C-alpha cells in the first residue's frame, strides 16, 4: 500500500494552494448572488422554506457537479470547514490521495439556493455530499464506511482521480 502520511501531506499542501481556485470558480459560475464573504451566522432553514428546484438552479448545480471529477458540496472550505462532517469528508479524500487538480469543493454556506437546491437535486437531506464523475456517492457516513472497508480507495483509483505516485514524489511537472 502507499504511504498514508505522504499522500495526506501532498494533498494538504496542494489543497492549501489550490482550494481558493475551485471556490472562486464556483462563486463565479454559480450565481450572481454568490458572495465572497461568508455569512456571519448560520441561517436556520425550516422545512417550510424549502423551495421547488427551479430550472436555473438545477442547471447551475448540474454544471457545478461537472466542474471536476471529484466534487464535494460542503459547509465551509477545505481549509476551513464549518462542520465536523464536512471536515471529516475532506480528510478522508485527502487520506485516500485525491488529486487536488481533480477536486472541487463548493461551500453551501455561501449560497442558500445551492444549500437547499443540492439537497433536492441529490435527493439527499444532509451536507456534505460527494460526487464522483457526476455520480452521487453519498454523505459523510457513507464515505466513512467506504473508507473503512476499502471500497472508496478502489473506486477512486478506478476513476483515476488519485495523485499519481511518481508525481507526488517530485514537484509537479506537466501532466498529460
Amino acid at each position, binding site marked *: 500500500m502507499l504511504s498514508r502520511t505522504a499522500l495526506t501531506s501532498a494533498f494538504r499542501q496542494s489543497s492549501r494552494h489550490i482550494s481558493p481556485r475551485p471556490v472562486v470558480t464556483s462563486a463565479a459560475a454559480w450565481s450572481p448572488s454568490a458572495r465572497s464573504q461568508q455569512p456571519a451566522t448560520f441561517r436556520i*432553514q*425550516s*422545512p417550510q422554506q*424549502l423551495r421547488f428546484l427551479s430550472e436555473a438552479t438545477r442547471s447551475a448545480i448540474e454544471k457545478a457537479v461537472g466542474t471536476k471529477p471529484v466534487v464535494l458540496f460542503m459547509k465551509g472550505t477545505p481549509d476551513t470547514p464549518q462542520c465536523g*462532517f464536512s471536515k471529516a469528508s475532506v480528510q478522508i479524500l485527502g487520506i485516500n490521495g485525491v488529486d487536488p487538480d481533480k477536486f472541487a469543493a463548493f461551500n453551501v454556506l455561501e449560497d442558500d439556493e445551492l444549500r437547499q437546491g443540492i439537497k433536492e437535486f441529490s*435527493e*439527499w*437531506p*444532509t451536507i456534505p455530499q460527494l460526487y464522483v464523475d457526476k455520480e*452521487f*456517492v*453519498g*454523505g*459523510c*457516513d*457513507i464515505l466513512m*464506511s*467506504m473508507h473503512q472497508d476499502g471500497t472508496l480507495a478502489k473506486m477512486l483509483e478506478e476513476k483515476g482521480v488519485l495523485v499519481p505516485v511518481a508525481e507526488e514524489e517530485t514537484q509537479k511537472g506537466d501532466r498529460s
Partner: protein
Amino acid sequence: MAESSGITAEGIGAALKEKVGATHVEVEDLSGGCGQMFQAVIVSPQFDKKTTLARHRLVNGALKDEIAAIHAWTPKCYTPEQWENQRKGG
C-alpha cells in the same frame, strides 16, 4: 420542547418501525438537548440486497420531515442477519 427542533429519538424510532419495517431500532440523541443531532441503528429486512446508499435513501425518504428539521443524522442500516453477526462479533 418549545425551543428545540421538536424531534425526539422516540418519534424517529416509531417512524422507522412504521415506514421501513424496522425490527430493531436504537436512536440516540447526541445533541445534548436541542434535538439537532441523532445517530441511529436501524435493522430491517427491507435492507436486504440494498447498497448502503440505497438503504440510506430508503430511511431518509421515510424521515424526510424529521431530517429537514435537524442538523446531523447518522443512520447505520443493517439487515437482521448482519445485525446478528455484528452483535456476535462485537
